[in-house]
C-alpha cells in the first residue's frame, strides 16, 4: 500500500506539469491586451507598457514564458499579478474561505444526502421515498446559478434566515452558499445511497444475516448499510476535490472572497500568473482527493488490494 501511494504521488508531478502548461497556453491564447485591461480607460504611456511587457515576458513566445514561470516555481515563487502582489499571498488570503465553504458543503452533502438516501432505500415506494426522488430530480435539473439566486431571494431576503453575501457572520455566512454548492452532489448522494441500499437489501449475504437470526437492526446497519455506503463514501471523497475547484459560481454570487471568485476575476483581467497558480492548485486538490478515495476504497472493501 505504501509503495502504491508513493507511486501515485509521483505520478501527480507530470499530471500537474501538463495541466499547468495547458492552463498557461489557454491564458496565452486569450484575446485582448492585459495591460490595456489593467489600465481601463486611462491612457498608458509607452514606457510603462514597455516595462510591464518585459517584466512579465508578454512579448515572448509561449514556451519561453512557460519556462520562465517554471524556473520561478522551482524556487517557490508563484509569480505576481500585474499589481505586483505575489500569487502565493493571494492564495493564502483566499484559500481558507474556499476550504470553509467546501467543509460546510460536504457536511450538508454527507449528512442530508445519506440520511435521505437511507430512509428512502429502506422504505422503497413509501411517501418519503417518492419525496426524495422528486425533490432530487428538481434540484438536479435547476442550474446552480438559478438555485443560488433563488436561495438568496427566498431564504435570505424574504425570510431573512441567512445572510445573503459576504463573510461578516463567520461560519454562519457559509451555510446558505454551502447548501447551494452542495445541492447537486447532495441529490446525487441521496440517490446513490438509495439505489445502493435497495440493491444490497436483495443481496444473498443479507438473506444469510436474516437466516442467522440476527436482530433486524443488525441486519440493516451491519450487513446492509456498511456495504451500501462504500460507493457513497468514495463519491463524497472524490467530490471534495471537485467542490474545492467548483465553487466559482457560488463564491461569485455570494460574494465570498475565495479562490473561485479570485480565479473568475483573474480570468477577466487576464492575470495569467494568478489563473495558472490557482487552477493548478485546484487540479492538485482533485488528483489528491482521488488518491485518498482509492486508498479509502481498499480500507472499506477488503477485496481491493493494491499490492
Amino acid at each position, binding site marked *: 500500500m505504501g509503495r502504491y501511494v508513493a507511486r501515485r504521488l509521483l505520478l501527480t508531478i507530470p499530471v500537474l506539469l501538463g495541466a499547468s502548461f495547458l492552463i498557461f497556453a489557454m491564458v496565452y491564447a486569450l484575446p485582448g491586451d492585459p495591460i490595456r485591461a489593467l489600465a481601463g480607460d486611462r491612457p498608458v504611456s509607452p514606457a510603462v507598457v514597455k516595462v510591464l511587457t518585459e517584466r512579465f515576458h508578454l512579448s515572448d513566445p509561449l514556451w519561453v514564458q512557460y519556462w520562465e514561470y517554471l524556473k520561478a516555481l522551482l524556487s517557490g515563487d508563484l509569480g505576481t499579478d500585474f499589481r505586483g502582489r505575489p500569487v502565493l499571498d493571494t492564495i493564502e488570503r483566499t484559500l481558507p474561505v474556499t476550504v470553509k465553504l467546501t467543509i460546510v458543503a460536504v457536511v450538508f452533502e454527507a449528512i442530508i444526502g445519506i440520511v435521505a438516501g437511507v430512509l428512502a432505500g429502506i422504505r422503497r415506494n413509501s411517501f418519503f421515498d417518492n419525496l426524495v426522488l422528486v425533490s432530487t430530480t428538481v434540484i438536479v435539473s435547476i442550474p446552480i446559478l438559478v438555485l443560488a439566486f433563488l436561495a438568496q431571494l427566498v431564504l435570505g431576503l424574504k425570510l431573512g434566515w441567512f445572510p445573503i453575501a459576504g463573510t461578516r457572520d463567520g461560519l454562519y455566512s457559509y451555510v446558505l452558499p454551502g447548501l447551494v454548492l452542495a445541492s447537486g452532489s447532495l441529490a446525487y448522494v441521496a440517490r446513490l445511497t438509495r439505489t445502493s441500499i435497495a440493491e444490497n437489501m436483495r443481496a444473498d449475504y443479507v438473506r*444469510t444475516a436474516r437466516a*442467522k*437470526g440476527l436482530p433486524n437492526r443488525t441486519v440493516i446497519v451491519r450487513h446492509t448499510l456498511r456495504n451500501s455506503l462504500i460507493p457513497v463514501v468514495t463519491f463524497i471523497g472524490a467530490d471534495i476535490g471537485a467542490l474545492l475547484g467548483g465553487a466559482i459560481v457560488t463564491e461569485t454570487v455570494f460574494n465570498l472572497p475565495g479562490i473561485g471568485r479570485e480565479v473568475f476575476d483573474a480570468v477577466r483581467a487576464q492575470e495569467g500568473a494568478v489563473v495558472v497558480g490557482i487552477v493548478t492548485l485546484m487540479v492538485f486538490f482533485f488528483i489528491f482527493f482521488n488518491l485518498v478515495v482509492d486508498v479509502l476504497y481498499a480500507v*472499506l472493501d*477488503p*477485496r481491493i488490494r493494491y499490492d
Partner: protein
Amino acid sequence: MSTASTSAPSGPVRPGTGPVLEVDDLHVQFRTESGLVRAVNGVSYTVSAGETLAILGESGSGKSVSAQAIMGILDMPPAEITGGRIMFEGRDLLTESPEEQRKVRGPGISMIFQDALSSLNPVYSVGFQIGEMFRAHQGMSRKDAKKRAVELMDRVRIPAAAQRVNDFPHQFSGGMRQRVMIAMAIALDPRILIADEPTTALDVTVQAQVMDLLKDLQRDTGMGLVLITHDLGVVNEVADNVAVMYAGRIVERGTVDDVFSNPAHPYTEGLMSSIPQVEAKGGRLQPIGGQPPNLASIPSGCPFHPRCPKRRTGADALPGRHCAEDVPPLRLVVPGREAACHYSEEVLGV
C-alpha cells in the same frame, strides 16, 4: 439405556420424540406485475432428529421457496404465506411474533445456501461472521465469539483455523467457503439444518467432502437435515427419505431406496430415466419432454399432465380421475409410499 443402542448416534438424539419439524399444507404465493405466482401449493413433510430428508425437484418447483418460508426469510411482500402450519418442536412458527421467529433461526433451525461466496458478507472476516451467531444469540463478547469461531472452523475441518479466522471470504476456495457457511449454521447446535443446494456450485471431489462433513456433523449432533437439491446422485448417497416436488406440490414421497428403485409417479420415473447410466454408455439420455410449468398459470388437473406419457385425458380416463381436470391428491399408494397420481398403481406395477 438399552445396550442394543450401539449404532445410535452419540449426540443429543432423543429417539421417540416424534418429528422435530412438521410442515403442514404450506401455501406460498408471489404477487408480481405479471400476476399471481403460486410457488408452493400445499406442501407437507416432517423431519425427525437424525433424519435426512431430500427435497428433489427442478428449478422453480418451489423447493427453495418452501425452505425460505420455514426459515421466515421470505421477502414479504412480494411473497405471501397464504396457508398452512410450520410446527417446530410443537409450536406453530407462523403464528409467532417476528421476534420469536428470529430466536428460532440459528439455535432451532438454520440454513446454508448454494453460493457461499455471495452468501457471505464480503467486508467482514469469516471469524467475525461465525462469531456473530454467539454475539446475537448468547450475548457473548467479540473476543470470546472469535475463539468459538476458531473452534467451529476446526470442527468443519478448515486447515489452520486459528490463522485463517481473520481472513475474508474471498480469500478462501469454494469448498472452504461452504465450510465457513456450515460452521456458521451449526454454531448453535440447531435441531434442523436446511441445506439449499449446498454442493451445486462446487466441483465433484469437493462436493463429496462437503457432503461427508454434513453427514458426520449430523451423526455427532443428531440434527435433522433437509437437503434441497436437484442432484439425484447426492440424494441417493446421503438421504433417508425423499420428497419429489413439481409445480409447488409434492408429487411423491418415500424412502430413497423405494423411490429410486420403483417410482410411483410418472415425473419421478422421468427423472430416474434421465440419469446417465454407466452401462448404457453411448446411448441417448431420456429427457422429460416439454417445459416446466409456468407457476403463474399452472395447468388444470394434474400439473404434470401436459408432459406425462401416461396421462389419461380421453375416454380411457376413469371417473373422477381425468388427468386434465381432476387434481390428484397425495395419497398412500403402498405402505410407506405416497404419490400424487391417479394411476400410481399402474406406474408402480402393483
